[in-house]
């Protein structure tokens, strides 16, 4: 295998602005609810009377997530046509639309909601790490768009040396299922 690419998400800096989502939708021409990167809000807590006033434990934070181009992608393993493939040169998981029959089985297999059904084409689609932009010396659309520099990308081994290995936070399924190539710096309160 070549050099596995991965994302580093600094959740502690994320404001939930969704610039990454819109940049991705724009670059990939995604219509309607189709999103290769999505931002999820986590919020809760409440106010409680305390003496003459109130105390509160209200919180809100966001998580930007796309395909994690996993080490053991369940979408690739279980795809009946072999359309879902993992590139050997950089570990990017992509859909070969010449083979895809649009059975949507990958949708049921991905823990991260990465595969997206393209109604118009009748086939699946997903984040492909903007490999075309990277080949031209550019960055993935989401990385370039983030105003907080909260998304970084690169060889996952280098990112892990720099930022650690955490890929399990509240709201995410266990990283042991598909071994996602993502590292997250959790927001306060998001640690498991």
């Amino acid at each position, binding site marked *: 295998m070549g050099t596995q690419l991965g994302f580093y998400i600094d959740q502690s800096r994320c404001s939930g602005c969704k610039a990454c989502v819109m940049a991705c939708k724009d670059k990939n021409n995604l219509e309607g609810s189709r999103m290769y990167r999505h931002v*999820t809000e986590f919020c809760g807590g409440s106010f409680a009377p305390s003496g003459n006033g109130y105390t509160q434990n209200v919180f809100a934070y966001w998580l930007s997530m796309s395909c994690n181009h996993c080490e053991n992608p369940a979408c690739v393993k279980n795809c*009946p046509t072999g*359309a879902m493939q993992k590139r050997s040169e950089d570990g990017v998981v992509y859909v070969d639309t010449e083979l895809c029959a*649009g059975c949507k089985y990958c949708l049921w297999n991905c823990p991260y909601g990465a595969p997206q059904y393209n109604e118009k084409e009748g*086939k699946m689609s997903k984040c492909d790490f903007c490999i075309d932009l990277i080949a031209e010396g550019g960055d993935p659309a989401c990385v370039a768009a983030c105003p907080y520099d909260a998304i970084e990308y690169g060889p996952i081994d280098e990112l892990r040396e720099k930022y650690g290995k955490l890929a399990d936070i509240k709201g995410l*399924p266990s990283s042991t*299922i598909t071994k996602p190539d993502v590292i997250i710096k959790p927001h306060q309160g998001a640690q498991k």
Partner: protein
Amino acid sequence: MHEWPLLLFTVCLSTCVGGFVFLGLTHKKLAEEADSFKVMKLPLIIFVALSMIGLIASFFHLGTPAHAFYLIRGFGRSWMSNEIVFSGLFILLVCVTAGLALFQKKTNLVLIATTSIVGLIAVYCMASIYTVTRINGWHSLNTYLVFYGTVFTLGPVLCASVIGLTYKDVVKKIIKMAFVLSVVGIAIQVLGTIIFSVTSFDIQLINGTSAVEILGSYNSMIIARWVLELAGLALLGVVAMDSMKKVNYSMIYLVLAAIIVGEAMNRYVFYILGS
């Protein structure tokens, strides 16, 4: 719930498999009482029709049906490919068995048995498709028991009902077998429900919802389904009793209707979890 094509496909195929198992088990008794070909002719034709309905329905699940034949490329790796290969083989064998019987005017027990075995393997693959996914509630022995439950309930009841249309005397001898298999079919589904209810399923989807939470909105349907199927089973038992000198045929079709509706409801609730 958008998975109507899959609901139709899985219920039709499971019913056909159960029907063939039933024909295999009752073949000797049917041959003793009458010309087994004449008795089995209509059920075999019905199973060909049912498998075709299931097959056509499965194409409606695909976004690009023109790429349908690529679905077998993952054989050995993907449970969906495995299921398509074995289901395809089963449907082919159903057609060959029925076609040969119609041509030779006699049934072939070896073919019926082989078709049944391939069908049972296809059902295992069918259930495995769902157990390996991230959908909460599907990764359970219950999923296998739900699918095999349909095989042993709907298949025999449909088969006995069809035979009863033209061979009332013969059906008296086989109604007990239909009842025994239906008891097995219902019993394994009860077991499956118990296993499901005591299992704690990990959430394996980002922002996933638990199966228990989803099913909370379908309590009435779940209860209605069990009432219908248990009532149907009880009625079948009454019909199968030795003391019944003459089988009341309207009761058999009532049983069939109750089981069809019950099984359809159960499969609907199953697919709700994945929608």
